[in-house]
């Protein structure tokens, strides 16, 4: 059984290298679920389609999630629907960006 809270905590260590805010606070992670025992599925997005850091961020999410106890495989899906909006950011991220 995967502890999704632990995954969330791990993903707070993944930063957008340009903005300097983590993917959880940016609201980039839409969904996390354990579809089958040990198989973690993550649906996430980027702040803009064609984001040049796309591969790095999704790979980092994959790596960090894989470190969580009980995770055997990780599938990261980058989706564009619904598109990311500033309202998806946490209060902390808004403060950090001065929004």
């Amino acid at each position, binding site marked *: 059984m995967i502890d999704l809270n632990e995954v969330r905590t791990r993903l707070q*260590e*993944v*930063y957008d*290298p*340009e*903005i*300097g805010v983590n993917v959880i606070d940016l609201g980039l992670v839409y969904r996390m679920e354990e579809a089958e025992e*040990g198989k973690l*599925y993550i649906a996430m997005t980027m*702040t*803009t*389609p*064609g*984001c*040049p*850091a*796309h*591969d*790095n961020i*999704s*790979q*980092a999410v*994959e*790596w*960090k999630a*894989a*470190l*969580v106890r*009980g*995770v*055997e*495989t*990780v*599938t*990261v*899906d*980058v*989706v564009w629907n619904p598109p990311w*909006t*500033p309202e998806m*950011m946490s209060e902390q991220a808004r403060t950090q*960006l*001065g*929004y």
Partner: protein
Amino acid sequence: MQGVSSPRGGIATSQSPPFTLPMRYLLLGVVGFGVFALDLAWQSTALGANRTWSPGVVALTHTLTLGSLLAFVMGAVYQLTTVAFLIPIRALRVARLNFWLYAVGATGLVVSMAQWWLVGMMVFGSLTAVSIYLYAGLIAWSIATAKTRGTMLWFVGLAHLYLAVAVTVAWLMIVSLQGGGFLAGVIEKLLWTHILFATGGFFTFLVMGFSFKLVPMFTLAHGFSGARQTWTLLFANLALWGLVAGVWVDSRLWLWGAGVVGLAAFVNHGMTLFEIVKKRLRKVVEVPLKAVLAAALVGMGAVALLLLQLGMALQAPGWQGVVALYVMGWITLSVMGFAYKIVPFLIWNQRFSKNVEKNKTPMIADLLHPHHARPALWGFTLGLLLLTVGTMADWFFATVVACVLISLSILVFCVQMLIVIHPKKVIKELTAID
């Protein structure tokens, strides 16, 4: 972690070319900027004395346009095209080999210009032309497959068409010089056509087009309208063709009308950028982006100066002031501003993105903080304004001081770029991958 295998379920939208492709061009551009800065300081007294048509100054101009700006822009375009249109670059091998053709052609051409060696200009000019046609063809082929066909695609596509026209006209001028001057009667018209298509066509369309992607991306802007972009495209095209027509029919009124439309294009572009910036999420507008915004204002100022020049029927020093302000203020300042964002990203991507599993991966700003761009960009802007005043007022002392200030600012820019690039590491990376 328990024997993790991680099938990637996501769709890959990143189509970035290999690091070596953009980096070689960017590196050539940085070296070109350095050579230009040193040569500008060296020739400052010739410029102050208004000897602008000497071979040395012609070579200096092309060190900036071919050696620095075009080299840098080609590298950036290879990277940005994949980001902006979500497409891969076609025929990567040809693109990589083409770098060497360009490097040899452009270097040989500039050296031949400095010596006013017509055979060299013919040979190296032809090599450069072939290389630029290849580059423009590859970009056109690549973006032809893009699924999203917005205004930005038109800007980038037309920019490359105008680049091919500018190169063809330049090549015709060289052929004419070499072949006994069979185009001597229209050489001045050809020269202006070349300048207009290169600066008002290629560079202007490219900077405007990619600004619509880069400025929102770096300011994290959302919810702005793209409605004005189409008008900018229309005005910019009308202005360019109007100016070219004005040159060929020799009509000051026609030129003035086209200049007014050009001013409308810049005002519209400036308003688009300011709307994007207004809708940003990042409170602080970084120095490089401020420079990009300032460059749009300077572009506007250069076109206004063109109108003044036409209206008052001023002579040569005024024209040189207009061209210098446009090329250095609008184009060069934009390129330098974007360089402070693009180069650190490329280096970060190459050297640190593979360390994502580690906790101590630096942020991009750790490689070169945007605030550090201040001395180079503002020193350059100040020098440029002084150069415009000095050139237009035919003021020797101001022109020389301005050249030295611009030169020092560009050298600071080059040193900062080289600190990020780290020549020793990059040479190792470039040779290891190929």
